[in-house]
């Protein structure tokens, strides 16, 4: 394993939420938990509320909420939903098999 040798690239996330609707609150909680567990000290989360910043939702073509966009590392990954299916999320983010 080369883990530990390689410096971990910062994961940059942008989470589009719809006010404090249950789906959005849950998505943020799930994202936070995943980052703390799998990416300690190597993540940034920006939360954008579509009702406060609709132009940013349009710019990023976000029509479903919540939507998570992984801006870095590339490629850009988009996941919609509450991020409740842990395996799906980890796989999509390339965090599968990471040491807990």
């Amino acid at each position, binding site marked *: 394993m080369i883990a530990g040798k390689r410096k971990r690239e910062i994961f940059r996330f942008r989470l589009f939420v719809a006010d404090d609707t249950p789906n959005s609150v849950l998505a943020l909680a799930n994202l936070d938990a995943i980052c703390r567990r799998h990416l300690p000290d190597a993540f940034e989360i920006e939360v954008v509320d*579509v009702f406060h910043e609709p132009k940013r*939702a349009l710019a990023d*073509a976000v029509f*479903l*909420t919540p939507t998570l966009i992984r801006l870095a590392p590339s490629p850009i990954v988009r996941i*919609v939903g509450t*991020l*409740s299916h842990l395996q799906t999320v980890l796989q999509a983010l390339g965090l599968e098999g990471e040491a807990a």
Partner: protein
Amino acid sequence: MRRFPALFVAFLAPKQSVVRLFDRAISTLAHRRIGGARPTIRSMRSRKPSLKSAPSKSLTGIVGFDEITGGGLPSGRTTLLVGGPGSGKTIFALQFLAHGARDLREPGIFVAFEEAPQRIIANSEGFGWNLGPLQPKKLFFLDAQPPPDIIQSGNFDLSGMLAVLGDKARAMGARRIVLDAVDILLSILPDAATRRREVYRLHRWLLKNDLTGLITAKDIGDNASSFTEQPLGLMQFMVDCTVILNHRVVLGTSRRDLRVQKYRGSGFEEDELPFVIGAGGIDVAVREPGRK
């Protein structure tokens, strides 16, 4: 029994020839199924589009359609436009928006779920609507095609889209909105309960924003097991007006028909009427009085 409606119509329209009206009433009867609903005063009155009906209406600019509905689609309400692939739904919807934006100072938003807006615009170029100068201030296209590689994890809703549309509608003072191929949108929602909830949310949003809405959806057919039938069925209850487009080939001849299935608070022509997609868009053939 059969004479009564004819006499009644003669009363309503004393200026017109009684003979023609009699013919018209008979042809109305002939178009109805035996044992079906008997012609009502409402259906008779609908033949006189000059009658002002209760709800205010938004002209579509579609020849014949504005006539049979007595002025177009219900203003500030939602209309469902249903038809199979290639039946003319998108053309109908775009014509409605183009007419509003160009001729009536009613800016409009076109939300495209199935086709790229560029393609829709290119396909309509032959009709001479000259959409170019209208964009983006009077006519705005929103590309809302779901990404093919969309990853889902858990529940989600349409708040993002409604937030974007609300912002856009306010900024441009939009009066009209088209949601084209809403079946595509519904198909990406995870389950039936979510689809119902989001259809409801969408409808409430349209009413709240006082937009004259036109939602198009692919033919749902009569198949009870149809995947999208439930939410579309729900939509049929919620909307104020339903229009059905049909395209079929009869003895080698292409034939298109339009039928207004429902129009809350208004009279309308209830029969299926042929239409063509001509040089300037959709053109509905309105039956001449006294002709079959």
